[in-house]
């Protein structure tokens, strides 16, 4: 079973809002010495893939990235966590790829360099764009069924997976034939493992193979959507602090505020 996990390098989502700024002209974040990390949901996707490999026995996990040279770092992290192989699709020929271009480039890399693939695992959304569309788009491009909001996956009957996913009412277990694409959400059962120091050292010594984007299909040659403005949300930032001599007085004042907001 060949499992491919798509991992993206993003600006650390834990960056506090007060340290976040945007360059309006360039339409991108303006952060000094930005810390770049593997996107949160992609770490979880990798964990789900590694657990599936452990349960399946005969399986390999490949980490796939579309990005610039700095993204080798997230691929090395994936190797340190337990992926056997990695591949970076060099995105430098794409100016500002949108979701369609990203999915098309990943599809081309899968078909051109990693085929045949049994399971593709993506995060629920990237922690920078928060769009959540590359997974479903990639599934459509590959003609794979997609199972969204996955918590864990285990081998089922030969050629099938049993997948536990989150639903609006709770969870459900589904059976799906391979090949399949999963998008992963977080749960207690898929908290990403910490790589061991020894594995981190070993990953540093590995080379990360790189391929070009190649020719995207004509329909994805240019972006279908563009980001025309990026701005900070207007925060009211005027928090009215409730004063009171006693806690009873504070509770009364709070109750009055809740009444004003028409929520009690």
């Amino acid at each position, binding site marked *: 079973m060949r499992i491919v996990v798509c991992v993206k390098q993003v600006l650390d989502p834990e960056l506090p809002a007060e340290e976040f700024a945007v360059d309006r002209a360039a339409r991108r974040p303006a952060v000094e010495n930005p810390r770049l990390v593997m996107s949160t949901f992609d770490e979880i996707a990798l964990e789900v893939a590694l657990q599936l490999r452990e349960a399946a026995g005969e399986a390999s996990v490949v980490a796939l990235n579309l990005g610039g040279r700095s993204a080798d770092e997230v691929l090395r992290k994936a190797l340190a966590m337990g992926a056997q192989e990695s591949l970076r699709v060099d995105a430098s020929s794409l100016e500002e790829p949108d*979701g369609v271009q990203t999915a098309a480039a990943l599809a081309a890399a899968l078909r051109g360099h990693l085929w045949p693939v049994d399971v593709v695992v993506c995060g629920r959304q990237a922690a920078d764009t*928060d769009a959540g569309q590359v997974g479903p788009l990639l599934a459509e491009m590959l003609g794979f069924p997609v199972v*969204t909001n996955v918590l864990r996956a285990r081998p089922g009957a030969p050629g099938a997976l049993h997948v536990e996913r989150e639903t609006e009412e709770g969870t459900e277990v589904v059976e799906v034939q391979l090949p399949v694409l999963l998008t992963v959400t977080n749960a207690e059962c898929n908290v990403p493992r910490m790589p061991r120091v020894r594995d981190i050292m070993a990953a540093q010594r590995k080379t990360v193979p790189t391929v070009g984007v190649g020719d995207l299909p004509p329909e994805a040659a240019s972006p279908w959507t563009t980001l025309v403005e990026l701005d900070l949300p207007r925060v009211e930032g005027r928090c009215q602090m409730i004063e009171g001599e006693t806690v009873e007085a504070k509770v009364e004042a709070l109750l009055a505020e809740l009444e004003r907001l028409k929520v009690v």
Partner: protein
Amino acid sequence: MRVLAVVLSSPSNSAWAEVVGAGRAAVQVADGALEVAVLGPEEEVAQEMAREAWRGGAERIWLATDPVLQDLSSDRYVAALTEVARAVQPTVLLLRADPMGAELGPRVAWRLQAASITDVVGVRRDPEGSLLWIRPMYGGKALAAVRSHRPVTVVTVRPRAFSAQPVRSGDPGPEGIRTVPLDEAVRIVPRIRVLEHRRQETTGPRLEEARVVVGGGRGIGGEEGFRVLEELARLMGGTVGASRAAVDAGWAPGHLQIGQTGKKIAPELYLAVGISGASQHLAGVSGARHIVAINTDPEAPIFKAAEVGVVEDWREIVPRLVERLKERKRADP
């Protein structure tokens, strides 16, 4: 411009008002007609939704029903919606970004070779007259305006970001409702077979749908503290959520986690109790209309996001608040 707002019908669903609201916002900024498509298994339920949507201002309703849509197979809904879009030929297709809509949007977009824009909270027009869709990025730390370059665009709208009130009474009449036959399109074998459903035992409404959410964080100090928050939430007709710190500490189950890696909520009121307000947590509450925070630390970042704050130990405030709300309920049941 033809805007088609899509409602996936279920009897207890007020989601029509959200997509109709988003559709009305779009046709207000760029002249156009708003139409609504109702998809679902039961024609009667769909007819009822059609009336609601018409009263909400839709000029024409398209019904696309088939009993096989009962099983909520996303493969079938993708096929059904693609069929509807080919029949109606809208410029913009609007869906609610709930778990089903979030999957359908990009998939249907690819089948129609349409642009896909997700999790939209607003819409404007740029000076050249094209629509700009507003969506949060970077965990709500930034707002982006996105333009489509395709003749057709599929947009998913964040739950509760838009709403619509009825603008007229009466009925659409036979002229106002059309049918899209689905027969062949949805007679496909879904590639995903459900083996087992496990319902989550929950008290109160779902986090994403709740009007009031009481969130507990590290400051709650333990599992028993969450019982007090549950009582407060119940008295306010709401439900309880938790920060990642509280979930990691084992005081609250993972499905209650609010934040970038948890649930995104959009209640009328988010009452944050003992929550410092880390960036990734605020990403999950940016859709809240009002935020009220209780925390002992006056410097906690949550107060920057809140409009009302109480600097106090929650143990002093919440139990008294529960008592006062109970008194009021007894006085005015």
